[in-house]
């Protein structure tokens, strides 16, 4: 019954929790929806902003990996011009 899936026609990362490194040191973690020429769309997103966060990015990742993604944004678009790196949260 595990063949019961409802995500046909999407790219390889669809639904996968990814880390997006963006301009100005911002880091976003969320579920990948799609990438278009305009940028990347993520769902259920946590954000680390070095200018706003009380903890370092390393501490933020430690907590995120243990307790999960604390959603701050239901959706987020990272414009193509601000994308620095994209990787899976768990390789």
């Amino acid at each position, binding site marked *: *019954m*595990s*063949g*019961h*899936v*409802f*995500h046909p026609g999407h790219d390889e990362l*669809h*639904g*996968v*929790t990814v880390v997006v490194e963006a301009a100005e040191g911002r880091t976003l973690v969320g579920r990948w929806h799609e990438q278009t020429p305009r940028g990347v769309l993520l769902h259920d997103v946590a954000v680390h902003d070095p200018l706003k966060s009380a903890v370092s990015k390393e501490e933020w990742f430690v907590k995120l990996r243990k*307790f*999960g*993604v*604390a*959603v701050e944004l239901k959706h987020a678009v990272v414009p193509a011009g601000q994308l620095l790196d994209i990787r*899976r*949260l*768990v390789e």
Partner: protein
Amino acid sequence: MPYPEMMIKPMRDEVSRLGVQELRTVAEVDSALGDITGTAMVFVNSVCGCAAGGARPALTKALANSRLPARKYSVFAGQDLEATARARSYFGEYQPSSPSVALLKDGEVVAFVHRHEIEGRSPDQIAANLVNAFDTHCA
């Protein structure tokens, strides 16, 4: 919005036939998880094919282990909304995700397998993670 029940019934059945008791109401969740001693597993089932398609077969494999939680429950995220929210209220700081698996001991979460530890992994890899938790915390 929940999917039509007929579409997800096979996903419920895939878990229920493993001897996992499905909790579909707040009252059922509280009866199962309130004031418990010993170990209890809660499988948060999901329609999502990206991850749940691996999680359910992994659960099947893991529940063949010699050490298992004393109680085995499931809730269905996105379907039984109130029951799922109530179950998550027993998970402390652990953030909602689905599918996921919580292992509780004497009412405290002692191991948690998040969605991000399920997606993209094989059932064997996911099951190994669960078995490690069972071997560590279950009699």
